[in-house]
Each structure stands twice: as C-alpha cells, then as structure tokens.
C-alpha cells in the first residue's frame, strides 16, 4: 500500500513562492495562467501490517500532526492499494 499526502497553504495565506513561479512562467510565454500556489507532496510506502482503514487513520493523523501546520495549511490523504 502507498499513501499520498498533499499539503497546500490555505487560501488567503500569502504564497510568495507561488507568485514568483507565476511571474516566471508568464515571462516564459505561458498564457492564461490565473494563479499558481505551491504545495508539498509526500509518498509514504506502507508495509503490510495495516489494513486500509488503519492506514488511513494513521496517515491522516500524521498529515494533521506532522506533515502540515493547521494554522496555515490544509492537507489531503489518498491511500492506494
């Protein structure tokens, strides 16, 4: 099993890195870009000791308590068989 965790800044939290990337891709000629937000992506390989439900609970907690800072970030967890 594999867990994928996506962490993004909450909407409303300034993302200067996203803004700089936005500016750069426009300079490179990419048109039609309304906004860029930069986030983080984690791939977590899970061994066979947990079932899907336990894995979801465990990774959700990891995402909430470690991988994201709830004051500024949101997260999303996906579990793949």
């Amino acid at each position, binding site marked *: 099993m594999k867990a994928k965790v996506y962490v993004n800044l909450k909407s409303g939290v*300034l993302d200067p*890195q996203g803004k700089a990337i936005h500016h750069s891709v426009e300079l490179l000629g990419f048109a039609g870009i309304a906004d860029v937000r930069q986030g983080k992506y984690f791939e977590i390989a899970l061994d066979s000791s947990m079932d899907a439900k336990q894995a979801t609970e465990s990774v959700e907690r990891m995402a909430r308590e470690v991988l994201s800072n709830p*004051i*500024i970030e949101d997260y999303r967890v996906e579990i793949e068989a």
Partner: protein
Amino acid sequence: MKFGVIVFPGSNCDHDAYHVISKHVGQPVDFIWHRDTDLSTYDAVIIPGGFSYGDYLRAGALARFSPVMNSVKKFAESGRFVLGICNGFQILCEAGLLPGALIRNRNLHFICEHVLVRVETSDSPFTNELQSGSVLRIPIAHAEGNYVCDDSALEQLQEEERIVFRYCDRDGNVTDAANPNGSRDNIAGICNSERNVLGLMPHPERACEDLLGSSDGRDIFRSLAATLAAAV
C-alpha cells in the same frame, strides 16, 4: 540563577546566546543537547537561532519533536522562562507554545540586516528594564519571518498586550514600509498569556556589543536576569 541554551542539530546562534549570558549578564549557563530532557536545574532556557534539522518540512517543524521539547513544554507550564529567538520563535510556534506561524517573507528574500523594533510593553519578564515605546536596533536574519495568525488570535494578542515588539521606523512609527517581511500587524515578537514565554525574530544576542553595530539587545537579557534576581 542558571540559564540553559538548547542545541539542536543545525542551531547556529547557540554560542552567541551563551556568550551574552556568560559575559554580559554574568550568570552561569550551560548548553543543553536536544536529546537531554532534564531541565530541573535551570531557571530560564533560550532556544537559539539557526536552521534546526535544516528547516526541512517547515522551519522549526522537526525540532518540535526532539526529546527536549517535551521538557521545555513542562518547564514553561511550571512558570519558568523560555526565550525563543528566530528559529527558536519558529519552534515555539510549531510546538504550540505560542500562537500563529512564521511563513516565507513576502519578498521571498533571506533578509539579513539591522532593523528597528518598538518595545510595545514593558510588562514582560523580558522587557521590564526597557521603556515601553522605545526603539531598539537589532539585526534580523531569516527567510521565514512573516508572522501570520487568524483574526481572533490577533485580537487576543492585542487585547492582552502580548505583542512585545513591532517593526517600526526611526521615529517609532509602525508602518508598512518599516515591515521587513510582511508580518501581520508588524509583529516582531510575542509572548504567551502567562508572559513567561517570548518568541521574537530579531536577534538580540547579536546586538550586545557596540563593536558589532548595536548593544540594544542587552537590555532584553538584563530584564530577564532582573526578573530572575527578583524571584530568588
């Protein structure tokens, strides 16, 4: 009174803090390795600046899980004093000992320069030797010093007069132009409700010698020493 300076892998202002306490405050001080958990002999601990754990994940995020941090939490709950400088401030926020978070500077730059901060309250163990409204010249050196918090947290900080330092101009005016990193409400430093935990982005330990451009930071350490002396 005895001070401790906590050392994480990647701390780099630990020796500066040690120097200030031993030379300018003239009190005993130890380095405390982040795996140590016994803080029973200390009256105040300093969480110094640097790049603990390489700032991986988020600045201060991994240091919070070091064994010593559980002890720091209990130390703070017991009413003893915790001073977090720069990366130390980031760690205190990540650990939930102070509200809010520190994100990337609004201009993306790592900023290393002397800035001016206004002392917003002398009602703290860290500023009781200073005049409220006075302006200190202290260096900053950070990429993630942009203080953010939600509206209710800001309101609470303001109402309880827990904003201890604000970025300001030469005349002490708190303006956007004087805000180096985009911090909400020009916040440079805050304390907890009990006022025994202070976090600030500027480096007072680097502003304790005239030779280094400013000695305005000394009074912060001297305030803390005066607080401890009065408590004995």
